[in-house]
């Protein structure tokens, strides 16, 4: 197991507790320590989590109450810190125009729900390597 993975801090942003736990399970299986994973139920909570602690990888849903994933990306971009984390969209969203806009704001990868845990694992390894480089 690489040190990069063990030193990776992850934030999972989804209004569904089920999805947060499913992503957490997949992330832990890659070697990220459970205590390095935080959860937020919407974009507003995610902003607060980022303010409190450094995060390397964010798994971000789009369709959420309070502040959705697109609004979260807009807020990060406005603050000039959208590229401070490796952001992976995990959503049912399929609209090409909206996904392109979110990618332009700084999202690096996308997993469509229902996602395959193996794909999530590959992404977090890629993100950890990139962050360590």
């Amino acid at each position, binding site marked *: 197991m690489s040190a990069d993975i063990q030193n990776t801090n992850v934030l999972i942003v989804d*209004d*569904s*507790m*089920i*999805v947060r*736990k*499913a992503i957490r*399970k997949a992330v832990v299986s890659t070697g990220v320590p459970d205590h390095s994973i935080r959860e937020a139920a919407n974009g507003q909570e995610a902003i607060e989590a980022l303010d409190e602690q450094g995060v390397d990888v964010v798994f971000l849903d789009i*369709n*959420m*109450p309070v502040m959705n994933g697109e609004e979260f990306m807009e807020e990060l971009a406005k603050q000039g810190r959208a590229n401070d984390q490796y952001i992976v969209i995990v*959503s*049912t*969203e*399929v*609209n*090409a*125009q*909206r996904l392109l806009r979110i990618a332009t704001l700084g999202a690096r990868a996308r997993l*469509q*729900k*229902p996602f*395959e845990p193996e794909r999530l694992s590959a992404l977090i390894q890629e993100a950890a390597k990139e962050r360590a480089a």
Partner: protein
Amino acid sequence: MSSLPQVDAAELGARIAQALEHMCFIISDPVDSAELPDTDTHSKVSVGDEHPLWDLSVSASNGLLSEIACGLMGIEPSELNEDEVLPATVQELANIFSGIMIEMIGGEEHPYHPGIPELTPAAPPTSDAVAVVALDAMGDGLLVTLNERA
């Protein structure tokens, strides 16, 4: 006849069955909705563009929801807080299935999007639906109905 895109119930059912298999290795078969095992927990999500155009409803037996939740979260049924998890699971199914439906009706090009899933006390009558999917998963029932907004 409605001007909205039509949803092929058989294709929607096949895609939902495939999603269940991929997510948590649950095998299901299409059945007539009249022969569907009882469902216990229900949710609904709107789908539309600037305005809601459809309601997609999901009803499932608690046994199936429990199996899905355990599969997704990697826990044993004995560890499950059913009061919290089963409603959350049926809501997430509504979210996922609405994404499948949107993809089927050209959502890559047209900005259809789902609302936030909510719990409902019962499934809507299938007689009013434009598409009905009924799946039997080893004796557990899953009912998905699609209704156009008036």
